[in-house]
């Protein structure tokens, strides 16, 4: 890992509220607060993992950062440039530097185009000159991601799921991006293929000096691949820390519950493991619970949790948590929550 302290990407108080409309006149009756004020930095060369349950806003975050969605509020700074409200025209050159990999290797490739056309498209669209022609460049990338360069003229359906994900990755790499946002890059794949693609992503990072934001719901995969991890719940980041701290001394009750719920491939764990079981489901982001959004499922919840939103505070070096009663917290920093102010 070659990390410097200059953030490549910096996100501040980012929000995305999707309007909910009703009737023919499309009167707005509410908003899905998909992303509701999140801040984080991504340093060059690192991998930030983004985890959380379905619907917590992970994909929306990825799409906001790459400006596939228009933010409702907040700020996105990439390499020192504010792109929060940049026009699509002004964004175009930046699109080369920031690419997205999607979950579904089946639907994200055009079935009527050959692999050569798919992987070569970014060159044509961006009008990039290549030294020995586009074909040579594409074949080099195919080899890089472990595909046979001679398969240049084949169609997506002639490849397996794992190979199609490699094609997707090859397409992403064509323009030598600096930042890659991978949204569930392996969750549609079989375990053995998943591991192949995870290894590939790691090799490419080392070889090409890439920076990743990896979105996934699988906490084991995220730990394996990430340097730092952010945990989201209902549109908020509730905890962010380097992976070692997050997995060995998680402070937010939700993080503790998530980790405790992961099935462990060891029969002994059945009896020896301490379990935290949440009840119920994630509440709707249309009407998230007030103050601490986790209070409806939290076993540590007190009255203050229902009235005062806990701010995301640094409780240990590089370890930020939004909770009035964190677990594993260094004693000195557990404050009485009465002084806390609700933001917004």
């Amino acid at each position, binding site marked *: 890992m070659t990390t410097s302290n200059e953030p490549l990407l910096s996100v501040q108080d980012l929000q995305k509220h999707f309007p909910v409309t009703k009737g023919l006149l499309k009167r707005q009756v509410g908003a899905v607060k998909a992303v509701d004020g999140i801040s984080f930095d991504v340093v060059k060369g690192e991998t930030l993992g983004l985890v959380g349950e379905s619907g917590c806003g992970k994909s929306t975050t990825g799409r906001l950062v790459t400006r596939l969605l228009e933010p409702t509020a907040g700020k996105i700074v990439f390499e020192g440039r504010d792109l929060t409200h940049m026009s699509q025209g002004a964004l175009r050159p930046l699109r080369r530097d920031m690419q997205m990999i999607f979950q579904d290797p089946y639907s994200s490739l055009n079935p009527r185009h050959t692999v050569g056309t798919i992987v070569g498209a970014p060159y044509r669209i961006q009008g990039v000159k290549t030294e020995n022609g586009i074909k040579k460049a594409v074949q080099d990338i195919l080899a890089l991601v472990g595909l046979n360069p001679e398969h240049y003229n084949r169609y997506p359906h002639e490849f397996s799921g794992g190979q199609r994900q490699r094609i997707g990755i090859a397409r992403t790499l064509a323009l030598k991006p600096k930042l890659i946002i991978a949204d569930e890059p392996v969750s549609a794949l079989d375990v*053995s293929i998943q591991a192949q693609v995870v290894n590939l992503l790691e090799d490419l990072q080392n070889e090409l000096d890439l920076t990743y934001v990896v979105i996934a719901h699988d906490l084991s995969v995220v730990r394996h691949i990430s340097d730092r991890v952010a945990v989201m719940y209902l549109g908020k980041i509730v905890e962010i820390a380097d992976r070692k701290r997050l997995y060995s001394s998680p402070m937010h009750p939700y993080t503790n519950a998530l980790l405790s719920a992961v*099935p462990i491939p060891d029969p002994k764990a059945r009896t020896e493991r301490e379990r935290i079981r949440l009840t119920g489901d994630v509440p709707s982001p249309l009407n998230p619970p007030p103050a601490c959004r986790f209070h409806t499922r939290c076993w540590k919840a007190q009255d203050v949790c229902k009235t005062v939103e806990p701010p995301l505070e640094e409780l240990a070096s590089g370890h930020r948590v939004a909770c009035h009663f964190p677990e594993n917290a260094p004693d000195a920093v557990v404050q009485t929550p009465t002084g806390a102010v609700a933001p917004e």
Partner: protein
Amino acid sequence: MSENAFLDVQDLKIHFKTDDGVVKSVDGLSFSLDRGKTLGIVGESGSGKSVTSLGILGLHRGGNANVTGQIWLDGEDLITASNEHVRGLRGRKMSMIFQDPLSSMHPFYTVGAQIIEAYRIHHKVSKSVAKKHAIDMLGRVGIPEPQRRVDSYPHEFSGGMRQRAMIAMALSCDPELLIADEPTTALDVTVQAQILDLMRDLQREFNSALIIITHDLGVVAELSDDILVMYAGKCIEYGTADDIFYRPEHPYTWGLLGSMPRLDREPTERLLPVKGSPPSLINVPSGCAFHPRCPYAELTKGRDRTEVPVLLDTDPGHLVRCHLSRTERRTLWENEVKPALETQ
């Protein structure tokens, strides 16, 4: 395997005739299961897990499937039994939980109506008695306010609640054999943990025989007494949970274990996946179907390509399908594979 086991499957073959050729989805599968016990079937997608479970329930009858072999349930041969008889057993004596509850619940009937109907097929009781039973079942599987929820439609339930409702439906007639095919694959990890707990508790309460089918080794480790590892329609290793996790002997089982990042261990540098991808079941590789992906194929001096290995006892109750000798496999596991899986 015991002759008077509650469920006894012998040399089960399920082949489909298609335009492209014969698909050998299940090709000589044998296992048995007693009441009160849980069998985990693991394998990657397309290995024949779902076809096996549908086969046991007699759901391939009348299609393009050719089913041979023996399936004994409580002393009755299900293969030779009439369609009508098998239909009578379904729901009452054996039932199934599917991966996607939406596709197996009727969208236009309330959840309660569907449980009531399932119950009344096998029990001559009034509607109101059946409704009481439905409410009782919904409560038992942890649906809040079952008196009210019994009148909800499937789409009004969250994913976790639908899965619970489906379990309630499957259990409404106290089946003695319950097959759960990827019951938690579509669920979030916290909800998955709730459902796995629920299945474990209910199985204890009803003393039913449970087959849990999944690609997730963590999930099988949580629930199974015995585990069957499937590859290309065949069982390649069978044993107790301890056999499979602590002393696995088949190279494919090793590959599955090496593919998974594990939360219960220090993070490893690299995953150790199986190379290549699962074979087509129309053109199954000759000899040992795993040979194109097996790192040890050469050690068997050509037999891997010419001779189908037989499933043999390596220890009482622990069966392995591989040409390597017991000593060779154990030496490889102890000296190479196990250390590699554990190294930092």
